[in-house]
């Protein structure tokens, strides 16, 4: 009598885990394809210097951060889904950091670049130069860069990067630039 519900519960739990693992895999597959696409084929052109893929191959690592239930001091406290991508030179000493907000996560996905900076190495220390905002954002990005440094390297042949299937825009040229909220005067 008790064995059946237990089996049922175990089966249900296994199905839920399989489903979650499948979703994570789907997310990884989406991001590994769409990040390079949105980095070099955004509506406003390429955000990656050509010297980083002079041999026709983009090398990058990425990190996906959904909203956190218990955000730390240098975490966002909003509901945005953020993706951080570092595009590297061959030796992973120099590159370009892009921060995306993942606006639509189901296909056709929408990734928007909301910040960018140059990855430099000076006196053996890696840093980010010229990203937007102040020291909080700099620290926020530096902490992500430390993880991007050791994340599994992905590669994408430039010629094989898709041109369709995702909306790729940026803070410089947002696709739907009509503000949702109308009130605009102090009240």
């Amino acid at each position, binding site marked *: 009598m008790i064995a059946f519900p237990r089996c049922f519960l175990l089966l249900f739990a296994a199905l839920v885990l399989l489903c979650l693992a499948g979703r994570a895999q789907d997310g990884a597959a989406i991001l590994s394809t769409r990040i390079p696409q949105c980095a070099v084929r*955004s509506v*406003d*052109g*390429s*955000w990656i210097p050509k010297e980083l893929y002079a041999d026709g191959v983009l090398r990058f690592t990425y990190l996906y951060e959904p909203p956190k239930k218990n955000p730390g*001091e240098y975490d*966002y*406290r*909003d509901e*945005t889904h953020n993706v951080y991508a570092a595009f590297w030179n061959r030796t992973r000493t120099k590159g370009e950091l892009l*921060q995306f*907000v993942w*606006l639509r996560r189901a296909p056709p996905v929408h990734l*928007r*670049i*909301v*910040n*960018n900076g*140059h990855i430099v190495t000076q006196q053996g220390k890696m840093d980010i*130069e*010229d*990203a*937007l*905002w*102040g*020291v*909080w*954002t*700099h620290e*926020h990005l530096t902490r992500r860069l430390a993880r991007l440094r050791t994340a599994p390297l992905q590669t994408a042949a430039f010629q094989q990067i898709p041109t369709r299937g995702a909306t790729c825009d*940026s*803070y*410089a*040229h*947002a696709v739907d*630039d*009509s*503000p*949702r*909220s*109308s*009130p*605009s*005067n*102090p*009240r």
Partner: protein
Amino acid sequence: MPPEAYDDMKVNDLRGRDVAGIIANEDRDVTPGTSSPEEFYQSKVWKAHAIINGDRTYGDLRLDRVHTAPSEVTPELENSPQYQQALAAARQAFQEQLGGKDPTDGRMFFNNRYNEYLGPRKIGNGSQEVVKRFGPFQYGSQKVYTVLYENLPETPAAK
């Protein structure tokens, strides 16, 4: 109107105290260094205007376009003189915007540069020209400049 009245007043989505919180976080532990306290304060007023302009332009979509630090501050920071200065700057910027004054002329992008470079900021296939620079200020052992940039051709005007 007393200065505190701006703390809970909204331009669009952000209250005066939210603007102060963003500035306090983004400027945390930056000190005037060799620059005057007045220049340091003015840099915060300009940043307050820039944040207000982002709010006026994008409202509740602001974080999908200009994703700054959160507005929440730690209790430690909230009780610090640096937060009080950020609050004073936010109040002044609110007051000025209500009176139709905006020294940034609608700009909303800023950052810190840890060198004296005054050239444009690279973005995609284009660039952002420098509009104004403040500093040098001090952040730990580093000199830091606050730089405000031109809006982008596609940026809608603040309402």
